[in-house]
């Protein structure tokens, strides 16, 4: 057979091209036939004029698009042989007609949606807001809680291993010797690796840069299944304690950014924390270790990274600073491993003479560290609920719109029912329409989420740690978003479809609105009630958070924030010994106090309200060693004599820390009022002695003064015990400086920077800014929640107002006859106004009550985030109720006006 290419017409060539869109199987069997048919048809129309040709091409295109859908949709595809449906009850003719129906429905739905473009766009945008917000929060939750960081093989077998107190309440790290002991024993684990984060300053090629480093045992990479992209990862020979080889594995990102992806870097020596390290390899792209959100740039053998004065810690079985990550042996459960390791641990502790009991906790690995898991999950859960509410409000609005539209088509629907269309068929058609709407809205919402998550991934909170966040929308999130959209589409599409096809033929056929009350349109009412309730809930939550932030601004911290300036560095990175640290900080403090405009300066190892703290126990000799009797747990900090005065915490009894409290002298401490009340109720604590640290090893410390209570860990603190130890007696590793400036004085930042640079040019300054900004971080969750709840609350308010307005306007329209009759019978304007208002206010009232009741329950869950504000704060509840009622009244205005415009004559003429 020879096909004469020359005689192939242009449309035929186009048709051949389009045929390639079919699945290959179909194309192979049908192509010759289709081309022959097309050619015959084209040749015949050729003589019939351009119009006939255009018509023919339109037929071909419609045919093509329809069959393309059918051929590419597996479930609709015909079974391959004729035997399959014999006796199955499903005939091809029937399945064909089912597909035809769907096709018809889709086309019909498209046409209907196109007929009212504005309403369609508004509805789609509304859905897009809901789906976009929900998908975004899903993505964040997915990135933080569910998704395994890249480069990790078989994460399901990974476990985190902690030492745990006998009551299971507190988790602890392990010592290096403890780790080695556990690893050798195995205990149901295939492998066990150690890790510990540490700052890493890279000072090769350019300015010193602080990055996150991680000390790891050499098997860390093999345990995770990571691979190098250049050179090698760590090998067992690298595990040689503090004297081991100084080697470093860089992350792909750090290699690209800092060293421009130089392939010759492997084998070269770089300056890390002021020491030479040989780069042995680069990890594969994307690999960032096992902890989510932390941008780890360099891995070094765990022993090598320690500063010299900490060398003994490697051998000290009491120095617990190592975190463990294990991989379960096949067929072992975490519980079995925990039991086995607990036995091993007990033998080890007995062997080294360690008093006290500690079990071993083994749990499945999660990218978020175990202590943070619950708060993070709780916070995200709250955000998911808030976004879910906005989706609910949006969907209810769309459902009401569909209902109104269906009501407008009541006559058409009634006619079709009367002509014998089955109700199922009509419901399916209406459902197709709403599903299409939700598909448009959902798709746009997912696009919104893709954009939003991109923006969010770029956000860097003001904390001095490089973080890496990737909230991008991945397949599971996409599927969840699709499922959500489908579900809401069906839920909120089915109700209007069922409602509007209720066989109530005679009334609709006569096009007689009748005396319709809202009660007859209960679904519409229910949607409005749900909207008002959800909006109320959102607004109450937003209100509570706004009130909380307001209180935080005016909250009694126990010290005066205005005029305080903070300077933080990381002296550990520069390998300062405790003596050097103390000497350095005392010198900085002395010189800073003399700067112009500075009235005083002081230093503390952990600043208050900095999302960080340290706790210890203290014991009182002669008392029962029972918690709360002779043994107390307390937060503590090491401070210089100038600290309490500078931050402005007054001494209420005794004296503060003095320059004379130095090494060699008796150990002293200032405690706060809360601790004094707890340990020595009704007594003067000044001059009392306590064992600080532990029973056997604690230092006998004298209480020399009592300081007023102040917030330390968080703004939610109430009566938290606190001990201030004299830094000069406590060998601090690192300290932060606070200076107080006179009002109206110059910004001390430049002078402080110059001062630190002059004392140590290599020291990177992490923070040099007003203290108010530093503690702002502790309000970050509140600010996020306020923002989300606020934005959604206002959006919800607008949507609910529109929804209420729509329902009332609709009801007034349907009741025009009744209103006209009432007017004719002498009802005054006031009466008519009451009639409409009563409907609106009833719906609002019910919704408001439901919303407030739900808010009262939800508020209990917010507890900690509210910083002591009552979850039932009357100001918020009353304010939101007033806001909702006012808005509802406004939404009623126009419908009322419309009702009053009704004239009896007009209505009666209508009949």
């Amino acid at each position, binding site marked *: 057979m020879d096909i004469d290419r020359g005689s192939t017409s242009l449309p035929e060539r186009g048709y051949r091209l389009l045929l390639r869109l079919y699945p290959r199987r179909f194309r192979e069997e049908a192509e010759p036939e*289709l081309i022959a048919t097309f050619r015959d048809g084209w040749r015949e129309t050729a003589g019939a004029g351009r119009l006939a040709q255009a018509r023919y091409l339109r037929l071909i295109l419609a045919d093509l698009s329809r069959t393309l859908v059918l051929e590419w949709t597996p479930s609709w595809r015909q079974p391959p042989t004729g035997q399959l449906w014999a006796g199955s009850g499903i005939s091809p003719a029937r399945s064909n007609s089912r597909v035809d129906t769907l096709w018809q429905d889709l086309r019909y739905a498209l046409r209907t949606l196109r007929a009212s473009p504005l309403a369609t766009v508004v509805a789609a945008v509304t859905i897009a807001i809901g789906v976009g917000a929900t998908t975004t929060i899903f993505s964040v939750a997915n990135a933080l809680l569910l998704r395994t960081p890249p480069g990790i093989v078989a994460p399901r077998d990974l476990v985190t291993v902690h030492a745990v107190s006998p009551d299971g309440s507190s988790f602890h790290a392990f010592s290096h010797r403890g780790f080695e002991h556990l690893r050798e024993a195995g205990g149901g684990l295939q492998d066990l690796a150690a890790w510990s984060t540490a700052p890493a300053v890279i000072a090769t090629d350019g300015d010193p840069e602080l990055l996150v480093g991680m000390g790891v045992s050499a098997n860390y990479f093999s345990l995770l299944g990571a691979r190098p992209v250049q050179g090698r990862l760590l090998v067992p020979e690298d595990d040689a304690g503090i004297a081991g080889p100084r080697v470093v594995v860089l992350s792909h990102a750090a290699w690209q950014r800092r060293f421009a992806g130089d392939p010759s870097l492997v084998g070269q020596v770089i300056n890390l924390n002021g020491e030479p390290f040989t780069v042995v390899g680069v990890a594969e792209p994307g690999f960032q270790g096992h902890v989510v959100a932390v941008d780890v740039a360099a891995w070094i053998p765990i022993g090598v990274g320690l500063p010299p004065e900490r060398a003994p810690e490697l051998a000290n079985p009491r120095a617990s600073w190592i975190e463990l990550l294990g991989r379960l042996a096949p067929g072992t459960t975490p519980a079995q491993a925990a039991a086995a390791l607990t036995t091993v641990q007990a033998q080890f502790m007995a062997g080294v003479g360690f008093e006290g009991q500690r079990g071993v906790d083994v749990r499945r690995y999660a990218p978020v560290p175990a202590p943070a898991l619950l708060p993070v999950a709780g916070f995200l859960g709250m955000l998911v609920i808030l976004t879910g509410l906005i989706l609910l409000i949006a969907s209810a609005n769309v459902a009401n719109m569909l209902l109104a539209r269906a009501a407008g088509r009541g006559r058409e629907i009634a006619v079709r029912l009367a002509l014998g269309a089955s109700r199922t068929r009509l419901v399916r058609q209406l459902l197709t329409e709403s599903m299409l709407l939700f598909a448009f809205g959902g798709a746009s919402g997912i696009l919104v989420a893709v954009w939003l998550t991109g923006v969010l991934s770029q956000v860097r909170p003001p904390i001095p740690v490089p973080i890496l966040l990737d909230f991008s929308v991945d397949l599971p999130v996409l599927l969840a978003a699709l499922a959500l959209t489908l579900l809401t589409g069906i839920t909120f599409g089915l109700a209007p479809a069922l409602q509007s096809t209720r066989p109530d033929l005679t009334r609709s056929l006569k096009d007689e609105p009748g005396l319709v009350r809202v009660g007859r349109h209960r679904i519409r009412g229910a949607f409005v009630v749900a909207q008002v309730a959800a909006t109320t809930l959102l607004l109450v939550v937003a209100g509570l958070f706004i009130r909380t932030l307001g209180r935080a601004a005016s909250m009694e911290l126990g010290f005066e924030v205005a005029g305080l300036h903070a300077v933080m560095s990381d002296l550990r990175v520069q390998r300062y010994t405790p003596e050097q640290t103390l000497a350095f900080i005392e010198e900085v403090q002395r010189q800073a106090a003399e700067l112009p405009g500075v009235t005083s300066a002081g230093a503390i190892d952990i600043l208050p309200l900095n999302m960080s703290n340290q706790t210890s126990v203290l014991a009182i000799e002669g008392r029962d060693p029972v918690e709360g009797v002779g043994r107390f747990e307390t937060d503590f900090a090491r401070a210089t004599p100038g600290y309490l005065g500078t931050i402005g915490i007054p001494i209420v009894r005794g004296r503060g820390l003095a320059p004379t409290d130095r090494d060699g002298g008796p150990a002293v401490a200032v405690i706060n009022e809360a601790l004094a009340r707890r340990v020595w109720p009704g007594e003067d604590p000044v001059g009392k002695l306590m064992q600080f640290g532990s029973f056997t090893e604690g230092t006998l410390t004298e209480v020399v003064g009592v300081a007023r209570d102040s917030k330390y860990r968080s703004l939610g603190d109430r009566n938290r015990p606190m001990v201030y130890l004299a830094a000069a007696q406590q060998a601090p590793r690192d300290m932060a400086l606070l200076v107080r400036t006179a009002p109206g004085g110059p910004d001390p930042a430049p002078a402080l920077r110059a001062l630190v640079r002059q004392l140590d040019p290599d020291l990177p300054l992490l923070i040099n800014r007003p203290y108010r900004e530093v503690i702002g971080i502790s309000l970050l969750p509140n600010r996020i929640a306020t923002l989300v709840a606020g934005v959604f609350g206002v959006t919800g308010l607008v949507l609910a107002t529109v929804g209420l307005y729509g329902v009332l306007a609709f009801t007034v329209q349907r009741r025009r006859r009744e209103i006209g009759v009432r007017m004719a019978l002498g009802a005054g304007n006031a009466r008519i106004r009451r009639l409409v208002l009563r409907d609106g206010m009833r719906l609002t009232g019910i919704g408001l009550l439901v919303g407030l009741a739900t808010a009262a329950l939800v508020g209990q869950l917010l507890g900690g985030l509210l910083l002591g504000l009552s979850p039932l704060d009357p100001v918020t509840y009353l304010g939101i109720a007033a806001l909702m009622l006012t808005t509802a009244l406004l939404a009623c205005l126009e419908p009322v006006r419309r009702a009053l415009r009704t004239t009896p004559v007009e209505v009666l003429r209508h009949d």
Partner: protein
Amino acid sequence: MTEEAAGLPMSPRVFAILLLLAREPCHGYRLMQDLRAGIAGESWVVGPATLYRTLRDLELRGWIRGKDGQAGSSGGPPRREYRLTDAGRKVASAEVARMTRLVGVAVRQQLVTPG
């Protein structure tokens, strides 16, 4: 075999195709034309791919059989010619019988007068 298992009732379009093929075997484009021209006032506008799929279904059921014919007089690919099988003929007459029974009922109920 029950009517349903036999694929009855069939869609009007399928019935029309069987009717057309009962007259004489023909190829796809011709069927398209004849369907458009209509039978007894009913007509169907179908595109080539839609028609092809229907014919494929009927062939799979064994109601019609396609045979690759000779290349057309004007060159180009060969046309497949379809003819009614015995099974197809039986199904078509079963459908006619079904409709006749219905008409009988309609006549008895004086919905129509026999014509």
